[in-house]
């Protein structure tokens, strides 16, 4: 009982530390530095502590100090309750969804069975969809409650876009569910132990469609029409400042991590290294005793998972800094006229293959 509790708390702290302590601040830095590298610039390098700049990493600390001490501004005529609630509504789902994503396999440590996922739900995928659709409310409420016309347009765009892409996203992963026959993410992970059973080989079209939908759902460029700064100022968070603004921002960054996590789990073999099964890993580390071997195998798996996640974060950043923005109606057209029919075709083909 006690061991279970310790295990749960350890896992929660790990994921929290990883997401909020590591990814959220570091992604701000990555976004600045990666764009700088892509654009022949130097990027953020001014914030220093005793002359040490650590290639601009201290900017995350400077940012934190800045946003915490900034005035929290609520415009006149705004609905105070919803204006305050909106950033929380969009941040919480981004944090919560990661709890069903497995970041490692199942190990036996000192006779205790450790499953590296915070909550191993049978309906893991549905849980992710349910919670990510809650984030829509954050954007819509933020836009509506700000008492600003640009925010309102942004909120409307956000609601239309996110609802549409949720429908499409749901259909894009049906193919994956048909292949693996489970909604449980740990099971899907286990089934990808064989390199040629990875989702990307089983569902190549599904992968492309899902990644597109996920980026659109996250409202990042080229799908950032709800916040298109040249058209509607800043869209639904025009009237936000200080910490509340950063909560929208953090929600967006954490969602990048979550998307990368889901993509890794569904399509890129979760925590598995290509061509190396868990048994091979365990026997390779046999010199450290059975517990030691389990711990080492676990560390390798966690590292594999997060390296894959970081790769997809990099990929999303590259897309964001390369492509121009869609127009609002083109985003909708892409969803309903391209992605939706394609994902239906994907389901159809998958079904045909399985019937055979």
């Amino acid at each position, binding site marked *: 009982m006690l061991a279970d509790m310790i295990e749960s708390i350890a896992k929660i702290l790990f994921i929290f530390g990883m997401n909020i302590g590591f990814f959220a601040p570091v992604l701000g830095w990555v976004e600045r530095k990666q*764009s700088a590298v*892509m*654009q*022949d*610039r130097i990027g953020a390098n001014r914030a220093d502590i005793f002359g040490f700049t650590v290639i601009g990493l201290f900017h995350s600390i400077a940012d934190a100090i800045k946003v915490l001490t900034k005035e929290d501004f609520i415009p006149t005529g705004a609905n105070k309750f919803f204006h305050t609630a909106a950033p929380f509504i969009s941040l919480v789902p981004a944090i919560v969804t990661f709890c069903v994503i497995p970041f490692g396999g199942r190990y036996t440590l000192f006779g205790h069975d450790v499953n590296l996922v915070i909550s191993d739900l049978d309906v893991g995928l549905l849980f992710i969809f349910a919670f990510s659709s809650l984030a829509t409310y954050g954007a819509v409420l933020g836009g509506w409650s700000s008492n600003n*016309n*640009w925010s309102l*347009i942004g909120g409307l*765009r956000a609601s239309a876009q996110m609802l549409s892409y949720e429908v499409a996203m749901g259909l894009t992963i049906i193919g994956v569910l048909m292949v693996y026959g489970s909604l449980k993410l740990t099971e899907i992970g286990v089934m990808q132990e064989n390199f040629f059973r990875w989702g990307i080989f089983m569902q190549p079209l599904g992968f492309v469609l899902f990644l597109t939908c996920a980026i659109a759902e996250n409202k990042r*460029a*080229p799908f*950032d*029409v709800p916040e*298109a*700064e*040249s*058209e*509607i*100022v800043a869209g639904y968070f025009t009237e936000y400042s200080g910490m509340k603004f950063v909560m929208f921002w953090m929600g967006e960054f954490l969602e990048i991590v979550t998307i990368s996590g889901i993509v890794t789990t569904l399509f890129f073999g979760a925590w598995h290294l290509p061509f190396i099964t868990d048994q091979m890993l365990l026997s390779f580390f046999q010199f450290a005793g059975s517990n030691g071997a389990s711990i080492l195998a676990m560390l390798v798996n966690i590292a594999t998972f997060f390296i894959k996640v970081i790769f997809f974060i990099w990929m999303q950043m590259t897309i964001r*800094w*390369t*492509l*121009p*923005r*869609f*127009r*609002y*109606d*083109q985003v909708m057209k892409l969803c309903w006229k391209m992605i939706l029919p394609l994902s239906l075709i994907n389901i159809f083909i998958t079904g045909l293959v399985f019937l055979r």
Partner: protein
Amino acid sequence: MSDITKDFNTEHMVINMGPSHPVTHGTVKFLTTLDGETIVDLKVDIGYLHRGFEKMCENGTWQQVIPYTDRLNYVSPLINNVGYALAVEKLIGIDVPERCKYIRVIASELSRICDHLTNIAAGGLELGAFSAFLYFVEARDIIWDLIEMLCGARVTANYVRIGGLKNDLPDNFKEKTLEVFKKVRSLWADVDKLLTKNRIFIDRVKDIAAMPPDEAIAYGFTGPCLRSCGVPYDVRKAQPYLVYDRMDFEIPIGETGDNFDRYLVRMEEITQSLSIVEQAFDQIPPGPINVDMPQYRWQSKDDVYNRIDSLIFHFKTVIEGIKPPPGEIYSAVEGANGELGFYLVSDGSGKPYKIKVRPPCFALTAAMPRMMKGRFIADIVPTFDMINMIGGECDR
């Protein structure tokens, strides 16, 4: 469904786009009436950068106007310098030396390249293509280095004088320019790859704000925006000034006059301008850069100290200004945006009686409502970028 639409009361939203809006850059206001995302009505409100250019000019001497012209189209100030100087010279009847003409062509074309680079860069930026923006801004920056070499300033050039130039080309200018052009060409190729065949970019700009040629002419379009409609009108070809008739260059024209054609025309004009500068370097003769007319153009210090007429006219032109004969004149050059015309009236005194500028982007901005009605609010962004309204020039 029909019941709902009948009973459901909707109204249009009136919203101010600008002047403090990312796309209007503080220089213009669009009063838009929106039906959802669609623009029902759009009114353009200009004048946020009005500095009274034309009135200011009446209080200075003819020569003192040149720094003001830098601030007209501040993206390509050298063309404004050249345009104004040519107009005054036409009024007086001066023909500047050959070398001066070539240097003016080089300066104008460098400015034109800068203007087009900035325009396309900003257009990319506002459509979200931030990398394309920085590539072209880098290209512009190294050309600004050249302009700095030439006249000591990067933006407010104040380089051209009535009847001549401030100074000759600096040493090694040709070599440095050719070196810079190599880099500019490679950056041009990068942006060409990033945008010209980019499906998202094409979707955003193609068939947006198309103008039929007759309407474009009726509105008074000139420059790349008119050429994109398929009308091959370029002042450099239609009424060649300086030495443009000796240059071998093409005028790119578009087909439909939409934003994509405007973009393509500008991209091609950059390469044409690069080649014009290179040709000018090949043809440029040695010789003086200033006319030998002491009553209009200061002589060198040597002459001023040693020749009595030079000394007298030096005093006279400093204190009273040069005195063109009474009369009025219109002279136009091909600005980066289109026909940049100066209408000058002289009463024979040392100060201009009236200076009227014909800014190319005024007519283009006036066509915004025509181009935008029935379009989406997001279409304002590429259209406004591609007509390239420069506040300083439009409002004066």
